[in-house]
């Protein structure tokens, strides 16, 4: 037989692929993945809104659900041959068995991936107008997620080829969900890098390129291994298995996920030009206009009362290991879950709560010893006084009599009291704190 030119051969494969895309499990997979994507995005917009890296990371967080769906879809598609009693007829044809297996896998993987990417493209339309940092390796994180969807479909294909039972697909999907969940909560280094599911990295951090390449290599090898076993290509399966192990070992035994370096571009400071400085990382800078009106009145009150801390800075920009308590000059702000879909500030109260680090007494935690409740109450009074300038609650919170008494003092006396409180709190001088809490 004369060899068929590549172009004509691929044209026929494309035509068969189109048939599979229309008539196989693919349309249902696309719809299910689109729905799952929209649902996941709607559940936690604060994780992805306003940040490209956040969107890519959330794509990987969603793998817990998405991979389970793709495994189920792959299993359903691959099981149809035996369910529909076509195995014998197909076996009698000359085309190598892996061709229809790969064609069916490709159709489901393409359709499912397109469905979920469509949902995430919708989210990208919200991110694009507000995002203030487009750099970093987020593209690669997204790409590894796409590879993982192909891997999940391939594993499903293998399950479907092994079992023609209708329940095999939902059971395989559920088992994938549980397995990935166990790996996630196992919280081991191997699980962090070999599982496609991200536990939710901090968005200003970057995963080393070699780890990302290793993840992609591991998932690709696993894909080939699954498809090769499904098509009973044992030599190919052995080769892919060897590659999978060779790639997995260095990735799983390499540096852990808790010492990821910051992306220098993402943590570059962006500060307000006037008044007490409010500085955010570039990746969170889209929140600056919303953060400043919340933070600045508190900073002004602080500087008027004590002169310090005099600035509020995004904790993402702090060197690794920096504690969350104030260093005297700086109040650290946490902005990782602080964005609405359109890029606004999601929870001003959480931001104000970051100032509690200023008023919290620096008392060492002692086991089997309850902190003095009077100190605790006084720290609440100090925090309430500090945050009062921009404080509003609905319905109004009951006013503490101690706070009322403090507010009744002349402003200079209020400042002096607050300054004395901070001094005593910094030293954990409990007697001095108790004295400050007594009516004067």
């Amino acid at each position, binding site marked *: 037989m004369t060899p068929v030119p590549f172009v004509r051969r691929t044209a026929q494969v494309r035509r068969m692929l189109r*048939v599979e895309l229309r008539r196989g499990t693919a349309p249902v997979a696309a719809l299910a993945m689109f729905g799952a994507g929209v649902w996941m995005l709607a559940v936690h917009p604060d994780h992805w809104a306003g940040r490209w890296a956040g969107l890519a990371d959330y794509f990987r967080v969603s793998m817990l659900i998405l991979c389970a769906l793709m495994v189920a879809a792959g299993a359903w598609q691959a099981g*149809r041959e035996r369910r*529909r*009693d076509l195995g*014998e007829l197909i*076996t*009698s*044809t*000359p085309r190598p068995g892996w061709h229809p297996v790969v064609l069916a896998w490709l159709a489901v993987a393409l359709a499912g991936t397109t469905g979920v990417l469509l949902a995430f493209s919708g989210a990208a339309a919200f991110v694009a107008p507000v995002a203030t940092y487009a750099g970093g390796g987020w593209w690669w994180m997204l790409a590894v997620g796409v590879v993982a969807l192909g891997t999940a479909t391939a594993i499903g294909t293998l399950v479907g080829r092994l079992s023609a039972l209708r329940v095999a697909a939902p059971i395989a999907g559920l088992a994938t969900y549980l397995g990935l969940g166990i790996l996630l909560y196992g919280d081991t280094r191997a699980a962090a890098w070999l599982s496609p599911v991200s536990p939710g990295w901090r968005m200003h951090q970057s995963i080393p390129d070699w780890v990302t390449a290793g993840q992609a290599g591991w998932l690709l090898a696993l894909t080939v291994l699954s498809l090769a076993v499904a098509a009973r290509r044992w030599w190919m399966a052995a080769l892919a298995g060897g590659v999978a192990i060779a790639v997995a070992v260095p990735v799983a035994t390499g540096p852990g996920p808790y010492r990821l370096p910051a992306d220098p571009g993402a943590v570059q400071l962006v500060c307000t030009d006037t008044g007490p400085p409010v500085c955010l990382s570039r990746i969170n800078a889209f929140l600056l206009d919303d953060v400043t009106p919340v933070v600045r009145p508190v900073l002004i009150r602080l500087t008027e009362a004590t002169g310090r801390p005099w600035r509020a800075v995004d904790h993402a920009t702090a060197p690794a290991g920096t504690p969350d308590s104030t260093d005297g000059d700086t109040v650290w702000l946490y902005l990782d879950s602080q964005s609405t879909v359109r890029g606004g500030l999601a929870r001003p109260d959480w931001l104000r709560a970051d100032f509690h680090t200023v008023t919290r007494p620096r008392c060492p935690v002692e086991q089997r010893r309850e902190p003095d409740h009077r100190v605790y109450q006084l720290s609440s009074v100090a925090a309430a006084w500090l945050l009062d300038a921009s404080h509003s609650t609905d319905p109004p919170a009951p006013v503490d009599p101690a706070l009322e008494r403090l507010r009744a003092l002349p402003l200079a006396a209020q400042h002096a009291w607050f300054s004395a409180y901070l001094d005593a709190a910094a030293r954990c001088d409990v007697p001095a704190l108790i004295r400050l809490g007594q009516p004067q």
Partner: protein
Amino acid sequence: MTTVSIHGLRVSYGSRPVLEELELELGVGVHGLLGPNGAGKTTLMRVLATVLRPDRGEVRLLGRQLSDPAGLRLARRQLGYLPQSFGFYPRFTVREFVEYFAWLKEMPPEAIPLAVDRAIERVGLLDRADDRMKHLSGGMLRRAGIAQAIVNDPKLLLLDEPTAGLDPEQRVEFRALLRQLGLDAVVLVSTHLVEDVVAACARVSLVDKGRLVFTGRPDELIAAGAAGDSGDSPIERGYAAVLRGAREAAR
């Protein structure tokens, strides 16, 4: 010209032999394969369709040894097969289903569209070509199954109970199609309907308990029967007589 050659074929399921020392030679033309239930007809069809590996014996299809992988692939390219239990993908249209099998049979891509239309036309389903398989009646499904079997103009066509579900008019048309196909291909039709054999087959083989007990022309099978044999037609009487004779000889 012999294009299917079977020598010393033995197939068993577990310890139970289904075909035993079977010898068969088939040339171009339509051959009927008759036999009672459990005689081994479907097993023989599956061996010839290359989906069942025999325990022993030599099978040559279209001059190729099935034990040679390259020969097997070449033989499969020239093979058409309609199994007894014909499955299908319900969401595929008839055209897509036949095209899918044309692709599986490694037909040249440029020949596929025309071959698909021709196969569908030959089974009389052209007006339903774009209907989904799940919307077809039992007879139409059978015809779609025949269309996928003949799409590659096979040199060896194996049809296991092809007329099941066809109405009388469709059976008449199908016999005409069989005669046409048998002009330049080996067509082996396994059936219980002996009148189909008389009407369409040039030769007939009768299998009983895994052994070939008769092979010859339909008129020779008819001649084997006598007026006292059971059966409503001459061929049924011949069929019954040959079976009775084979069983008595085996005792």
